[in-house]
């Protein structure tokens, strides 16, 4: 005789519990953490570097770099500008998970950090499913990727707090219908905070930096 046992539990429940622990650790040390997601080549590292350059020098930050392969190209760029960086090699996995981020957090001195930037693996599908324990999810969508991304990858647009439209300096050269793109985003995540920038030229960063600084300040109150 078979017996039915009700479970009704999220499949990634254990990841979410670990994410909750990470969150608590960050909160205990008044660290504001963001998870930066994007497809490969959207400009995540350049965006992070430009953000570091634009932030006041007394704001203490650290970067966790997620990569699928043991390459330290991105982490090296961060340490080159004098910031602590922890590299996570996912061993081919398509996303960071809460366990990996928890281990990386333990390598950092959280008392010496105000802002933690987590650069996720370049991918528009998998990172959306795995909570890390950060306070804000940031998605970078770059102009040359095309204006149909919200329609093709709806899931990742659902749980983001900030959308960065990157590489706007390329708008004159590619067929990117901003209205079509924004309509797709609006259907999935109404009113999501959006900043249009060029990480290369620094255009449009003032508002993003102001938003970020306000968040870091409120985490310390």
């Amino acid at each position, binding site marked *: 005789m078979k*017996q*039915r*046992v009700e*479970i*009704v539990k999220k499949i*990634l*429940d254990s990841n979410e519990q670990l994410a909750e622990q990470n969150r608590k650790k960050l909160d205990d040390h008044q660290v504001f953490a963001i998870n930066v997601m994007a497809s490969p080549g959207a400009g995540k590292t350049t965006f992070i570097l430009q953000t570091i350059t634009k932030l006041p020098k007394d704001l203490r930050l650290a970067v966790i770099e997620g990569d699928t392969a043991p390459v330290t190209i991105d982490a090296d760029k961060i340490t080159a500008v004098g910031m602590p960086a922890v590299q996570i090699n996912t061993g081919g996995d398509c996303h960071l998970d809460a366990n990996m981020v928890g281990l990386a957090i333990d390598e950092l001195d959280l008392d010496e950090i105000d802002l933690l930037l987590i650069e996720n693996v370049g991918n528009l599908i998998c990172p959306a*499913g795995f909570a890390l324990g950060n306070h804000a999810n940031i998605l970078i969508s770059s102009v040359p990727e095309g204006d149909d991304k919200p329609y093709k990858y709806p899931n990742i647009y659902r749980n983001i707090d900030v959308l960065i439209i990157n590489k706007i300096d390329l708008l004159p050269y590619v067929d990117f219908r901003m209205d079509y793109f924004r309509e797709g985003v609006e259907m999935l995540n109404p009113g999501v905070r959006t900043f249009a920038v060029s990480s290369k030229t620094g255009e449009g960063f003032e508002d993003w930096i102001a938003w970020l600084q306000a968040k870091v300040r409120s985490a310390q109150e």
Partner: protein
Amino acid sequence: MHELAVTESLLAIVVQSAKENHAQKVTDITLSIGALSSIIDDSVQFYWNHISKGTVAEEANLHFNRIPATLLCLDCSTEFTLEDELMPCPNCNSINLNIIAGEEFQVDYIEIQKEEDKNHETTS
């Protein structure tokens, strides 16, 4: 997607629940998977067949309850299901929408055989 990680997580939940309920064997597992969750059934089943070997849930059948993406138009209250691509309200063309189903990603229930069931079967 990341089906291996998902399948490993699923196995942990099922084994834990089987243990709590003194199951001798897990025969069936029913999942609710929303269309927006980007999980491929065949892929989960493929990994399942490998990683469940030697566990209480070996050879369990996975049942996928696929839930279509359903949207509610906040302007004209039309409810519609996405067949493929994301689209505005088919009635009034509004983009003022609310996703009301399609993001599910959970284990609903498992079906188990208990030790005493087996004894009962052999003695009857």
